[in-house]
């Protein structure tokens, strides 16, 4: 018997009700003063915020992020000099290292964590912000935002940064370290992506992407 897809009746914007994403308690939507935050009565999870400049801020941060992402991948991240010999490491060199050692599963995992998922996140943010800003058809943005939130924990730029710092201390006593250009753009990229995600309010985005909710 084939699976049958059923789309139930939407009840989201009906008399402005919304549910806490954590505990499921229903609330009634209330307009907020700019900059204010609405919390759940039961578990105090943030429900939504009001920030009139959200879309523009996300757009600016995402464009900056894409430029920094390109720089971080083009220039070398770290270098090491010992006895006149120099080795260098690019961002994807971390994945290449595992590949050369025969651990292709790890190579794949690392390149997903450091390249594919962060890039996908940046491109999704760009599409979502542009869709809201320019009133595009929301279908693609809905698909991307849905997957972005599932894949979020698997992009690990900031974890890699901690890895870089640990490696720097470990290697510092052994040889001369060269901090590459990509190290700085990579640091900035982490800050910019964190800022974009802090500014983005999921409730507002879904509300704006849902044609039925546009009041």
């Amino acid at each position: 018997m084939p699976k049958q897809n059923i789309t139930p009746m939407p009840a989201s914007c009906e008399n402005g009700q919304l549910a806490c994403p954590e505990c499921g308690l229903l609330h009634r939507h209330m307009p907020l003063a700019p900059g204010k935050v609405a919390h759940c009565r039961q578990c105090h999870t943030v429900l939504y915020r009001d920030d009139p400049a959200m879309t523009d801020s996300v757009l600016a941060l995402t464009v900056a992020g894409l430029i920094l992402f390109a720089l971080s991948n083009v220039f070398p991240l770290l270098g090491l000099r010992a006895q006149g010999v120099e080795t260098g490491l690019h961002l994807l060199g971390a994945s290449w290292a595992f590949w050369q050692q025969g651990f292709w599963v790890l190579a794949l995992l690392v390149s997903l964590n450091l390249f594919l998922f962060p890039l996908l996140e940046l491109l999704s943010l760009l599409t979502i912000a542009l869709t809201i800003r320019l009133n595009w058809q929301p279908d693609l943005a809905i698909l991307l935002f849905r997957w972005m939130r599932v894949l979020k924990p698997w992009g690990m730029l900031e974890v890699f940064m901690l890895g870089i710092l640990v490696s720097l201390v470990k290697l510092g006593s052994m040889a001369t370290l060269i901090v590459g250009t990509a190290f700085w753009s990579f640091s900035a990229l982490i800050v910019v992506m964190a800022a974009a995600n802090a500014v983005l309010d999921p409730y507002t985005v879904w509300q704006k992407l849902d044609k039925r909710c546009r009041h």
Partner: protein
Amino acid sequence: MPTLNQTVRQAGLLQCNVCGGLSRPPASLSRYSVLRCPRCHARLHTPNRKRSVEVTWALLIASAILYIPANALPVMSVYMLGSGQPDTIISGVYKLWSTGQWPLALIVFVASIVVPLLKLFALGFLLVGIQRCSRWRQHDRMRLYRLTEYIGRWSMVDIFVIAILVGLVQFGNLARVDANAGSLSFAAVVVLTMLAAHTLDERMIWEEC
């Protein structure tokens, strides 16, 4: 916020896990029908406690088993001037500690040994609570879940350190770092516990059975 003093379930509604959108389920459903969120088209989980709990247990048990080779097998080998030996996670921490780099030893110890163990126990504890329909300190259990979900990815730091060292320290006989099989099981533990945290539907902490 004004509340309607009802949960989604009590109001007979469905809430999408992904976009938080609400919908009204049809009165009758055949066994083969799949509900899709009217807003984001993600599959809606009609609260199926049994499945979420079972899948999470399976992932948790698999990662608990892999935790053994992850700690028993060497994760990398450092060779200096032709001599050196494979290091496990614990011996790596011990080496850092004994050379006086204790802040670093602490970071690696917490990220690679404490966090995975904590995740295994925390998820197990949450699952037992859910299976017994416990109403005990739901706020704190929710907080424990959030914490578990948040810290999981930081365990990958050890894998990244290995990748960076292997990529950088390649000076032939002078100094060389190789990756070993333990790193594969360690990465598997991190990935599986992250998946387990994902498959555990945290709203079950609040729901009555």
